[in-house]
Structures are given as structure tokens and as C-alpha cells.
């Protein structure tokens, strides 16, 4: 009897594995192998042609000690992430709250605010080169009409990164949609109870809406931290690092190192450093979540 069961289980396991094998094989060849191989190559000097040479931690040493552009690109990316992540969250939250009220044309407005996030990155990049054009861009025209100083966005190393942040916030309709979904999940009776207790709109947002949105906020934070470290397409199309390397983001430099100078080993080392940074950030966000994310169960 036992024998029969185990035979059945074996057959089931085998069939199961066979059914998932297309994924397993694909995952192994296209994800797992490159993942492991890139770790090996990060300790080598490798230019695609010819054999790779084992050079130990030399790539890492050069990155941390000698390469100024590595530090510059890391700084640029951190600068961008530090501005973009909280800003996109706050703006997304504000729009979501406004679009959750009972106004006319609500679904139309939702669609409008979501639209920018589905425009192809390359297209929106070209568009924003024009929007942020220092002389004739719509933003500077408006600023000048209001008699405000108009920054020379992509011609000024001090304003080029904020330019990217504005563009990315514009395109973060995804955040708004996720928060909207979260908002619809907040039970109405909580608000009614609060109103009976004399709470105003601010009280309701701070004490009811925000705590109940924390799971969605955690998700958004993790996704946007990862996303902001992956900044590449627009930077490659719009400024390619200029002016004065002020928009040389980490991935743009990684690409240059690997596919312009063909230092694959060096590129792999950079990729692994990026992985460690993003992993640590995501992990610490996750760890901290126990203290501020509310999952709807009462703690005893």
C-alpha cells in the first residue's frame, strides 16, 4: 500500500516537474546561470573575446579606491532616489486622495493621471527634453510668466538631476493607482465612527487612511527604490551623462563600462555592488515594516 502511494507520488512529482520544466530550463539558462557567472566574472578581466583572466578583487578595489566616475554615478543615483522616492509617494498620495472623493468625471481623471506611466520611456524622454528646454520649454515659459527664476535644466549641472526627478514624478501614475486601490479597501464605517467622535478631514487622513494604507506604501517604497536605482533609458536618450557627468547614473555608467569599453568583468563587479545596495535597502525597508506597517490584525 505504502509502496503504491510513494510510486504515485513519484509519478506526480515527475509529471509536475515535466510541466514546469519549460520555466525551470528557461530560468536556469537565462537567469540562474548568468547570475552565478556574473559573480565569477566580477573577479576577472574579461572583454568577451578571448579567455577571462582571474584578477581577484582588483575590480572591486579599483571601483572603490580609484574610479571617480563610480563615486560620481553612485552619488547621482542616490541623489535622484532620495528626491524621487518620497516625492512620488507624496504626490501620488495627494492625487489618489483627491481622486477618491466624489467628483464629476472621476474615472476620466484617473485615466489622465495614469496615462503618463504607460508612455514608452524613450518617447517620454524626448518629450521632456522639450518640456524642460531652458529657452522655449513650457515649464520655463510658465515660470518666466510668473516672474520666477527659470533654471537652465539640462544645461546646468545643478539642475539636471531635479529635472529628471520632475519627469519621473510625472510618470509615476502607477503609485497613484496602487494607492487608489488601497483607499477603496478602507472600511467606510471607520470614517463614520471618527466623524461621530468629531474628527475633521485631517484627523481622518492621519489616523485612519494612512495607517490602513501602510501595506500599499511599503510595496510602493520597495518598488520605487528598486526602480530609481535602475534609471537608465531616459538618461541614455536625453543627456547621456551631460552636463559635466551630473546625469551619469549608475546604470548608465555600468552600460558604458561594459558596452563601450567592453570591460565585462568590471561591469559585473559594478552590477554586484548595485545588487548588494538595492538588496540591503529593500531588506531594511522590509525589516522596518514590522514597526510601521499595519496589516489589520490586533497585536496582543
Amino acid at each position, binding site marked *: 500500500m505504502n509502496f503504491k502511494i510513494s510510486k504515485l507520488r513519484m509519478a506526480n512529482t515527475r509529471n509536475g516537474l515535466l510541466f514546469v520544466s519549460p520555466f525551470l530550463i528557461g530560468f536556469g539558462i537565462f537567469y540562474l546561470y548568468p547570475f552565478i557567472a556574473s559573480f565569477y566574472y566580477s573577479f576577472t578581466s574579461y572583454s568577451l573575446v578571448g579567455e577571462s583572466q582571474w584578477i581577484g578583487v582588483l575590480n572591486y578595489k579599483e571601483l572603490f579606491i580609484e574610479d*571617480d566616475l563610480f563615486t560620481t554615478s553612485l552619488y547621482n543615483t542616490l541623489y535622484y532616489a532620495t528626491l524621487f522616492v518620497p516625492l512620488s509617494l507624496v504626490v501620488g498620495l495627494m492625487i489618489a486622495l483627491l481622486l477618491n472623493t466624489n467628483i464629476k468625471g472621476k474615472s476620466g481623471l484617473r485615466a489622465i493621471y495614469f496615462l503618463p506611466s504607460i508612455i514608452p520611456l524613450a518617447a517620454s524622454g524626448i518629450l521632456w527634453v522639450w518640456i524642460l528646454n531652458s529657452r522655449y520649454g513650457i515649464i520655463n515659459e510658465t515660470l518666466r510668466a510668473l516672474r520666477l527664476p527659470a533654471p537652465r535644466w539640462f544645461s546646468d549641472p545643478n539642475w539636471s538631476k531635479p529635472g529628471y526627478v520632475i519627469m519621473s514624478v510625472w510618470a509615476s501614475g502607477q503609485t497613484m493607482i496602487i494607492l487608489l486601490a488601497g483607499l477603496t479597501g478602507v472600511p467606510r464605517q471607520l470614517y463614520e465612527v471618527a466623524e461621530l467622535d468629531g474628527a475633521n478631514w485631517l484627523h481622518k487622513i492621519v489616523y485612519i487612511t494612512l495607517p490602513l494604507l501602510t501595506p500599499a506604501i511599503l510595496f510602493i517604497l520597495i518598488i520605487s527604490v528598486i526602480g530609481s536605482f535602475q534609471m537608465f533609458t531616459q538618461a541614455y536618450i536625453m543627456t547621456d551623462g551631460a552636463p559635466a557627468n551630473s546625469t551619469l547614473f549608475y546604470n548608465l555608467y555600468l552600460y558604458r563600462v561594459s558596452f563601450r569599453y567592453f570591460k565585462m568583468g568590471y561591469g559585473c563587479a559594478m552590477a554586484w555592488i548595485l545588487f548588494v545596495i538595492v538588496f540591503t535597502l529593500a531588506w531594511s525597508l522590509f525589516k522596518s515594516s514590522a514597526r510601521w506597517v499595519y496589516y489589520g490584525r490586533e497585536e496582543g
Partner: protein
Amino acid sequence: MRKLRKSNKIVCSLVGMLIVGLLISGYIPAASAQEKKATVTFWTPFPVPFYEPWSSWVTDTFNKLHPQIKLDTTPIPWDRLEDKLLPAIAAGNPPDVFQFARPVFQSAAMGHAQPLDELIENDPLVNPEDWYPGVWYDVTYEGHVYALPFESDSLVFFWNKDYFKKAGLDPESPPEYLSELDLYAEKLTKKNAQGDYDVLGFTPWQGRSVEFMHWGWKNGGTFYDSEAGRITAADPRNVEMLEWEVGYAKKYGAEKMGALAERAQMGGGATAVGMFCMGLSAMRVGGSFFWSQIDKYGPDIDYGMTRYVPIPKGGKNAGISEGTLIFVPVGAKGIKEYPEAVWEFMRWYSINAMPVWSLQVGDLVSRPEYADLWMFASNPKVKECTKAIELTHPWPKVAALWFYRDQLKQAVEYAIYGKKTAEQALKDVEKAVQREMERYK
């Protein structure tokens, strides 16, 4: 039921006859023809979309002239060329012939290109002295020849004659020295009521002179000490020239100058083409290919052009020349199995097809023998540009030349935006390139 079966039989037999027929008519003669022909595979960045007929013209013409060889041409966009070649070499299946940017130094040093010395020695039709010396210099590395040249370009100075007249300058005499250039630039610059520029006289880091080396050379500076194997970017004469560029940034404001350039920007490399063609800059150092772009995009602009780009007092003429070349990638099968066919194509493409290309698109011929032909010599613009090849300064024979030039571009930006002093910026380049050179040892 029976009817159906019958019709099935008919269909089956018809299909069978069709297959047999196809085999007889198509496959068999094709196979026998293939046995005779040697197929040469060729990857080229030409045509870019504007010149669509080029790759088909090359293929058709060569195949007609050489019935025993089959040329198979694949056009690949410029910026994807290396991305495609390297994996192909790594996989052991590169094309037989590959067209790439001049000079060949890095491809040779990294082991992507094969030496061609023997083939050249045995071919009386291929003589190095038939090319401009500067062009041939670019296909050699460490005593070996690695490629055959294709077309060329050169460095030329352009000025807007209408602006010269309006500013009270003689439209027929461009500035000769930097001191004159600076003075003219000031006179030609126009501001609007808000204090923004409408026209900039000159921007030293724009157009083709985004490359810094030629300014250094013009001042007698060097960038590489080949005997000591040392990078010399921070040569005081180079520093002096970078400080001269910084002078422009300080006087006119780098951000403000950039803002004007943005007006002509399309989110890519089109900036500099646009500025002069749109009448936003009065003088410009450009490539020899630039006049055809002005004629196309700024047909109303009355401009002059000269091969004598302004130089510092006591300096010398020293231009830049680039273009493309063709080489045999390492591991290519054609050169082992049917070297005659591959070489036949390379020679034909480099010597016979090159002038046709140059004539089509306004590029320069890289062999003096063609320069005097009426189709090139009758156009004064082409003539001036071709003569500019003779003023070309050789590139430093450094394997990491791309890296070096990128580093210099960045150094110029650091300096003009005041992020580093001219000397510091060039010293940092020296250090970075020296370190990069270690990779090639």
C-alpha cells in the same frame, strides 16, 4: 464517403507532384551553383536610412562583376556594430569582412582584427603609398597592417558671411589666430532684451571640436609619449588651451551658452548641426561632411569655409581626420577557406567602391588619385575639405583611444562648468587613461 476519399487522393498526389517539382526546379540547380561560389559575408554601418541603396548597390555590383563570388551584405546601425561583432567573435562565427570606425588601434590591441600584412605584400594592386599618409597611419598598429581604409573626413572652419557683414567684418577673411577668433566672437554675439543669447559668435567645445586633442596639437601640445608609454594630457600647452576654452565659459556663461544650444536640440547629437544651420552660431569648427548638412538644413545661410582653423600665435595647423575602414575579424572562416575571394572584395570595396560612396554623400576620398577627378575637383567645397586631410595630425597610437577621447570630453565639461580647474581636469584624465592602458598589456 467514397467521393471524399477520391478527392483526398487527388489532393495528395497534387501536393506530392508540387514538392517533387519544386525540388527539381529550385533546389538542385541552386545547390550546384552554391558549390562553385564562395560566399563572402560583410557587415557595414552603411547605409544609414538616408542612403538606402548603398548596401544593395554594393552587393549587386560586386556580384555582377565577380560571378564566382557571392557577396552577402548586412547593414547594422552604427551604435550596435560592436555589440554584434564581439558576441559573434566569441561564438566563433564573425562575418568575413567588417566595416568600422577609423583608427584601428583598439580593434587591433583587443585582438578583434587580424593582421593583413601578407595579403598586402603579395598584392601589387594594394600599395600603402596610394593613400593619404594620415589615412594609412590609422590602419596600422605596432608594425602590422590591420585594415584597409574606406572613406575619410577632415576638419574645416565655417563662418556665416551675413553675420560678418552685419558686424562690420570682412566676410571674405575668416580669423586666422585665436586672438582674432575671440575678438570676432565677441562682435558676432547678440543678446536679447532678457539677457539671453540670440546668436553666439563661437563655442570652442561644439561641433567637431568637442574633441579636445586638436586644440592641444595646435598649441604644440602632445597627448602621448610613445617612447615612455606615458599619457601626457596635462602637458602645459594643453592646459593653456583648456584654460582658453574656460575663458569662453566664464565670459559668456556655460549654462547660458548651453541654453542656446538646447534651442536646436532634438534630444541627441543633432545639437551642433542645428545651431549653425539655424543661424544661432556665427562660426563653427566642423567635419568636412558638414557643408552638405548646411546646404540641406540651412539653405539660406551664406557661409564660407576654410581648411585653416584658427590657431594660437606661434602654433601650427593640426586637424582631425576620421572615417571608416574594413578589417577581417579574428576567427572569420572566409579568410581561411577562400582568402582570394575575401581579399578580392576588400580591395574592390576599399579602392573601387569608396569614391562612389564619397560622391554620393559628400564624404572625402582617401586616395589622392581620385581627388583631382572632375567630379570631386569641380566642387570647391569638396576640394577645400580634401586639402584639409593634408593638415591632419595623427592620433596618438594608444589602444584605449576611445576611452581617452571620452575622458577628454568630460574634462572639458568639468572645466567649463567650474567643477575642476583646467589643470586638475587634465591631470585626472592622465591618471584614468594611464590606468586603462594597463588592461592592454
